[in-house]
């Protein structure tokens, strides 16, 4: 059984003029345990919505998403939150670190909300991403590259089986992008976690054996291109 299995997933938004716009229409998608997959998608292609649906942040309008055997579309918000906290790591383009919290607190808070705090593991993670000297720095005191490394460590805090990464290198320079991506992939591999990454950066996509065009799996994106 695949780690992630999606069938007939749809998500619509209501536009300001009252019309309904389909953003996600994915007939089928799956990801195996520890698989690493990159999706190429342009801005507005619905890839963030796609990831938010998988993460359970958004509820789909139709279809089914199964993660580690659990159909999250059949579950309430609270259960989706629990599943996200314990099984899914999320890396954002804008890092989304909590500003008033130190690097260590950002990681440990994720643990508190997930499988429970593990001080040794949180420090080990931050040490692994090269932040052992910056444990008590707040995001504003870190460079963007360092912030993204903390975000990567946070995503791994609860030993997720699936890591979602939304343009994780989008705000980084080439050197930092390379470092962060390598860390992310390495940590996923070490922790036996699957990685689903979306990006529009060819340099990032080129590093994945499994790199797919999001437009190929999202019929909504195809129809938009057709009407454009």
């Amino acid at each position, binding site marked *: 059984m695949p780690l992630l299995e999606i069938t007939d997933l749809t998500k619509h938004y209501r536009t300001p003029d009252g019309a309904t716009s389909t953003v996600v229409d994915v007939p089928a998608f799956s990801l195996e345990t520890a698989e690493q997959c990159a999706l190429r998608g342009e801005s507005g292609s619905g890839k963030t919505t796609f990831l938010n649906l998988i993460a359970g942040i958004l509820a789909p309008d139709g279809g089914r998403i199964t993660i580690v055997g659990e159909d999250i579309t059949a579950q309430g918000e609270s259960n989706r939150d629990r599943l996200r906290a314990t099984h899914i790591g999320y890396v954002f383009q804008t890092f989304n670190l909590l500003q008033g919290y130190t690097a260590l607190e950002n990681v440990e808070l994720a643990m508190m909300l997930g499988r*429970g705090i593990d001080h040794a593991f949180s420090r080990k993670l931050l040490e692994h991403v090269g932040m052992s000297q910056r444990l008590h720095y707040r995001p504003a005191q870190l460079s963007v590259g360092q912030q993204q490394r903390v975000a990567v460590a946070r995503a791994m805090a609860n030993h997720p089986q699936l890591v979602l990464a939304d343009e994780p290198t989008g705000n980084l320079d080439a050197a930092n992008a390379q470092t962060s991506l390598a860390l992310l992939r390495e940590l996923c591999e070490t922790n036996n976690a699957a990685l689903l990454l979306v990006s529009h950066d060819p340099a990032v996509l080129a590093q994945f054996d499994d790199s797919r065009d999001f437009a190929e799996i999202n019929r909504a994106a195809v129809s938009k291109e057709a009407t454009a």
Partner: protein
Amino acid sequence: MTTAIAHPSRALAVALIVRRSLRRHAFATAVTILAAGLASGLVMAVFAIQSQSQRAFTGGNVGFDAVLGARGSKLQLVLNSVFHLDESPGNIPWSVYARLKADPRIRLAIPYAVGDNYRGYRIVGTTPDLFDRYRYGNDRSLAFAGKGRAFDPDLREAVIGSFVAERTGLRYGDHFHPSHGISFDDADDDEGHHAHNEEYVVVGVLEPTNSPIDRVVWIPIEGVFRMGGHVLRGEGQVFVPKHGETIPDEHKELSAIMLKFAAPTVGADLDNVINKEGKEFTLAWPIAAVMTGFFEKFGWITRVLLLVAYLVVAVSACAILAAVYNTINERRREFAILRAIGARKSIVFSAIVVESATIAAFGAVLGFVFYSAIVIVAASIIRTQTGVVIDAWAFHPALAYVPPGMIALGALAGVVPAVKAYATDVAANLNPHS
């Protein structure tokens, strides 16, 4: 990479979120805590002061069972003779005192004559019985500091209460001139036009009694009769005492007679004879009941004060609500991130409610500081004005239920912003849609 997974602790997460928020909004938090503290302290203080002052004025053993005075208000009689406040309702003839003193049902009768003051402290003319036979509190007699003694009833000697000594600086051996009237004008002084020519010497300073006695200057009753400008109307005729001549008893008059009964039933008997059948005099008995009536009559003042205090509490709860609510908009992204990394809605809701309750809890703790300050000031004012010492530190149930009540109210105030935080749209506040 191996790990030992600890037990999940969402309570720790809530605590961390609250701590970080309070620190980030330190100024607003401090001001809100101050408001909550003031409200909490005010409510506790109003309850405690009301309770303690009522207890002090009605429950304290003043050493007498009843006061006999001119026909009029019992309350005025008690205020004037026991608490040395208010005007005397009028005078009564000396013969009444003589009769009561000889009455076997009366264990102790002490005459009071008032009409003068020294720097605002009432001068009361009385007999040395006050120092020899009077007992107050737990069977305590008045004691003199140092080498002090009771005045000689035939000399211009005075005994002063401890508070008078403290405030006026009068000491053993000092001389002073009484001033006419029971209130003191700042323009008066020993040489002022209100000052009597008679000069008194302090022969005794009383040890503190924590009662209105501490605020009195005691002189021989004969001294009041003979004070320059005083006119006696004991049995109706006007009489001006002359130096060197004895004052006939029929001309002497008193402001009040303080009575201690030989048996508890005497009070009812005298009450019947004097108050119900008689028309000349008023017997204020029992003294505590008269003061209880006073507090009951003016209980609305306490209720108004409590209403104000409760309003302050309500305002402080609104301040907590506003302070926390105002942070919600700026924290939407934080809530979205928390939700994105797995925080359930209940965690976000709890964090806001706990944050409000924490502000109120700090306020409740600070409330004890305000409470202490208010009761100390109030006790000082009451002592200065009446001589009555209230037990500011006595326990009142309000001290037990106001702080938790404040915390509960704080938590309640947090519900509105918590609902707003609860409803945060995660996707909309997390990242722009791509």
